[in-house]
């Protein structure tokens, strides 16, 4: 029996009186590679923030390896959705990845050799050593996304949380990007929020659908009922690259 990496019980989140997440129950096992899909505004980012400890749920409990998320900060590597990146920000790739080594207790001490080694290993895992001294603003969307993953990996987390990682990545580089994640999946638990159904079908082990409520049957299949519930309309989706079928036969 594997360890439980994330356990969510009865979690609801309200913004003012608006219900964003309703009665979410989810168990993610160690080394699962879980994809979460759902419509815009369905609460995907909110759910990731709840797991990352950025947001306290209105109701319910979240446990990351048995601890509340804000006590499990050393276990979590968070890769935020790229909003409008500040392209002029004066920092090199190395500066940014090193910030992944920060923690409450290490605020004042200079970065140690161990910190530098972990940051360098993270850069190598994302094949970014060559860009180490480049300003962050000079990178392409895909490279910058890999820097953000490297930054999360530098913390040597046990769980990687990614919010729409391919949104700003050049379509042609998409596959390569998922290959990077695939490399990591034997080392850690990965939860990824995405719109990219074809990539999900190929790479992830389990898929959950989220639209305020979570539909999840601990497998890679999305039943027609789940799909109907989540998107509220019959959709025929064809996941390219069959035989990686996501939808059941219909």
């Amino acid at each position: 029996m594997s360890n439980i990496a994330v356990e969510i019980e009865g979690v609801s989140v309200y913004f003012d009186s608006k219900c964003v997440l309703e009665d979410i129950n989810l168990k993610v096992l160690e080394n699962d590679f879980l994809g979460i899909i759902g419509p815009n505004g369905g609460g995907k980012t909110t759910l990731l923030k709840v797991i990352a400890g950025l947001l306290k749920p209105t109701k319910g409990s979240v446990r990351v390896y048995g601890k509340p998320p804000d006590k499990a900060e050393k276990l979590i590597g968070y890769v935020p959705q790229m909003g409008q990146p500040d392209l002029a920000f004066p920092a090199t790739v190395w500066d940014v990845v090193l910030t992944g080594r920060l923690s409450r207790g290490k605020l004042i001490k200079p970065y140690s050799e161990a910190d530098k080694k972990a940051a360098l290993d993270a850069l190598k895992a994302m094949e970014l050593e060559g860009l180490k001294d480049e300003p962050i603003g000079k990178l392409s969307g895909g490279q910058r996304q890999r820097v953000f993953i490297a930054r999360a990996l530098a913390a040597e987390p046990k769980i990687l949380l990614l919010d729409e990682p391919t949104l700003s990545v050049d379509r042609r580089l998409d596959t390569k990007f998922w290959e990077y994640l695939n490399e990591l999946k034997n080392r850690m638990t990965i939860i990824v929020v995405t719109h990219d159904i074809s990539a999900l079908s190929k790479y992830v082990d389990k898929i959950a659908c989220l639209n305020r409520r979570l539909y999840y049957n601990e497998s890679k299949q999305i039943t027609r009922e789940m799909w109907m519930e989540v998107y509220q309309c019959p959709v025929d989706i064809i996941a390219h690259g069959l035989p990686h079928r996501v939808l059941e036969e219909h």
Partner: protein
Amino acid sequence: MLELLQYEFVRNAIYAAFLGSLACGIIGVYVVVNRIVFLSDGISHAAFGGVGLGYFLGLNPIYSAIAFSTAVAVCVGTSSKKLGAREDTVIGMIWALGMAVGILFIKLTPGYVPDLFSYLFGNILTVSSSDLLVMLILDIILVSVVMLLFKGFLAISFDREFAQTLGVPVNLLYNTLLILVALTVIMLIRVVGVILVMALLTIPAAISEIFTKRLIQMMAGATALSLLFTLLGLWLSYVTNLPSGATIVILAAAVFFSIIILYRRS
């Protein structure tokens, strides 16, 4: 030119230029990259309330201004979320409120009080030795805090949310940063005035940003540029017999726009 240096007020102005540029160069970079220019300007205007309070209570206005604007900085940093109001709206209100309070206190103070104009534009040629001492102490505080918290400030400036997931105390760091901004503004307010403070916080950092790729380089560049503008502006104001503060601001802005135009073309 060199014979000017025999006057104490000229030497003091040059020392003030060095001490002020160091503070503006370092803190200005944080103000620019965190996009808190408006907040900083709000703090500097609100400080006028502290200046007025100081005169009214018979204290050295610099101390009451430090206390007042530090309080304002922390209030704005923490309250806008809790009040549910937009941050820039709160800043606008506190800006006006601080100045109104300052004007009331000054009106209520018997005897001699400085006029609003000297507070807005200051005069670097009237810096006293005791002002220099206060500036030196504040510089030492600023530099030490920035050296200690450099990594944390970088992390929250670049990506506050990510820093929070690491357990970094982001609110504490942000409030500390705002207090440093308040200290910088106060340290320079009587010397150069609110308007020159804002110019020296933003223009050198903005120019330096174009040519540098790391925060520390940007700070060094901003400090050097700030010093250059201040000294050159002082000399120009002496030659042309124009007010020093305004000359420094116009010189710095002219260089900024020239560089932007030239740089965009190439």
